């Protein structure tokens, strides 16, 4: 993996011990932090492979998407890996799987849409190290495979920020994915102290964060906050453990955010009459932008006239008022 941030959850999940600044070792798995860039990745991997014997080299990490066909957060096996230097594709490429997405490794970060655009014909994914790791593995005649989690749209504004924001989440996702590949089973993190509730890595992190937030807000200990949570009531509901955990998180979110429940209920009041007529009103979940996306499907001119008539009834005032905090909350 290229960065410690990406690898953090792998290290935790597989209980790897740091043996050198960039190497974490366990019984069945060794994790090498290669650093960013194909040159760095190649030299670090080669050096390790020269010292120890491995049966497989897996390059696991995040990649930018050069295509609009894939979603951020998806993990894909990599098919072929190419290299570009100063935007120019190089001759040598390596294979990882028979099926999957192609990936191009770049010497430089791709920070503008123009630079990304020229590479869309080369591969669907772009990263900074896979080619180097692949080259070192192939030279050492060790099996090589690569999986990439799509972290952002390459070259898009704010991509780097987004990757930083999501680093922990992506790391957890990669770790669970790797566990699935290595053990053949999903590692389920049932939280034993709360029977009847199922938390993933991510939801457990959210749960802990919300409980801490509430303990700060209400100036109570974590234990006091936990004692006050409606575990018993939720257990009585006919829900799956996963849905029960979600419900618990939602309860916590309502407690820490004094406006959330009220805002959601008022927003729904504004949206529902239109949704019943097949018109969807999409607003920014964070409430940050005033933009409203209106969508509907029509098949005939009659449908169109009907929708136009309904849209004449639409006013953004209620939404704008909510956004401006006019809530009459005490």
């Amino acid at each position: 993996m290229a960065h410690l941030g990406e690898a953090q959850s792998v290290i935790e999940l597989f209980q790897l011990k740091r043996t050198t600044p960039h190497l974490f070792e366990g019984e069945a798995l060794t994790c090498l932090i290669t650093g960013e860039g194909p040159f760095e990745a190649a030299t670090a991997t080669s050096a390790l492979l020269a010292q120890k014997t491995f049966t497989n080299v897996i390059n696991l990490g995040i990649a930018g998407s050069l295509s609009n066909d894939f979603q951020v957060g998806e993990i894909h096996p990599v098919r072929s890996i190419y290299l570009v230097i100063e935007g120019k594709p190089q001759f040598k490429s390596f294979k990882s799987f028979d099926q999957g997405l192609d990936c191009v490794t770049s010497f430089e970060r791709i920070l503008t849409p123009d630079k990304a655009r020229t590479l869309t014909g080369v591969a669907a994914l772009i990263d900074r190290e896979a080619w180097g790791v692949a080259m070192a593995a192939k030279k050492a005649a060790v099996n090589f495979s690569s999986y990439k989690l799509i972290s952002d749209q390459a070259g898009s504004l704010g991509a780097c920020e987004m990757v930083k924001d999501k680093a922990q989440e992506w790391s957890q996702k990669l770790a669970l994915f790797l566990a699935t590949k290595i053990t053949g089973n999903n590692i389920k993190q049932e939280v034993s102290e709360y029977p009847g509730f199922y938390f993933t890595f991510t939801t457990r992190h959210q749960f802990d964060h919300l409980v801490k937030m509430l303990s700060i807000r209400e100036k109570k200990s974590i234990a006091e906050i936990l004692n006050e949570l409606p575990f018993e009531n939720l257990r009585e509901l006919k829900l799956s453990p996963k849905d029960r955990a979600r419900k618990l998180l939602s309860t916590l979110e309502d407690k820490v955010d004094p406006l959330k429940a009220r805002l959601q209920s008022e927003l729904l009041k504004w949206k529902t009459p239109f949704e019943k007529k097949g018109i969807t009103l999409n607003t920014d979940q964070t409430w940050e932008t005033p933009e409203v996306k209106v969508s509907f499907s029509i098949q005939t001119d009659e449908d169109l006239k009907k929708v136009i008539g309904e849209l004449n009834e639409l006013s953004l005032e209620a939404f704008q008022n909510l956004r401006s905090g006019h809530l009459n909350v005490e």
Partner: protein
Amino acid sequence: MNSPLRLFRIFAAVISMWNKIYVEEAILNSPRVQNILSKTGMVPLVLKTYDEIWGKSKKPYLHKRDSLNLFLAEKKGQLLKLAPDAYGTAGEPHYYFIHAYNCIYECQYCYLQGYFNSPDIVLFINHEEILAEMQKTVDENSGTRVWFHAGEFSDSLALTHLTGELALYHDFCKKNPKAVIELRTKSVNTKELLELEPLDNFIISFSLSPQKVAKEIDLKTPSTKARLKTMSELKKRGYKLAAHFDPIVYQDTFKSDYQELLNQMNDSDLTKELDYLSLGVVRFTKDVYREVERNYPDSVIHGTPMIKSFDNKVRYNHPMRMWMMNSVKELALAAGVKSDAIYLCMEEHA
């Protein structure tokens, strides 16, 4: 044998708030530096330029608690900076002048914890050059009122007993009626100030939070009660005053807390007298937010969810901050603050 001066220096050094004092070689013998040194009683370490040491390595912010160094230096480069939009009242140019870096106080939300690589304090002593730049700016904006704010990178009054520069800036205001200086502070250190005559264009603005909030998050600062007392004294002397309710931090009782603060201000007839009152809801750049999480993990600031907002700053969501700001604004209006004296700070609109 120890002379009285030497004994004084030893005593002062023992009780000093400074771990070490560094002075730039070129200004070591200047009367201003010698005056500061004599007040601290410490023997300085001499450097060519302060940034040979200051900020060269990342010094954790909270190290200021036990190893705060003082640097005396000359400010090079930009001496004035144009203030960002919504910094002060609209329609007039606003600048801040840089006479110091870092602060002796420890407010949990302070952006200085993520701004510099070091919490050590730098006092720039070339005030004449700063004032010359201010004069140039006033001359270039002839006919327009130009604002100069102190306190962007340091409290503007907290160390004035040591630095003694207030009279120079006061004199500048006296000579330039179109220039307005705002001294932003949480300090009650008004000894130097009270020796000067009040001027309409020399405004002292106090950052205020409700008492119980200030106690939790404005660490090592004078209490709200003490700040209000000082405001009251300055008002009696005829000083122009302003206030900043910034940052407003959410607590379930925030409305009643601000009501109480405004009541306290009213008890001293302060609300009607305010030249302006700025309101701002707590906000951070991402780097500062990370520092706040690291330095004060149990702060009340972390008791309510925040999001990344339109300008990449970390804030409460839009409805929440608008609701809070408008709620406090309504309370302020009801308490007698003039409507046109209230401005909303660092937000795109109300």
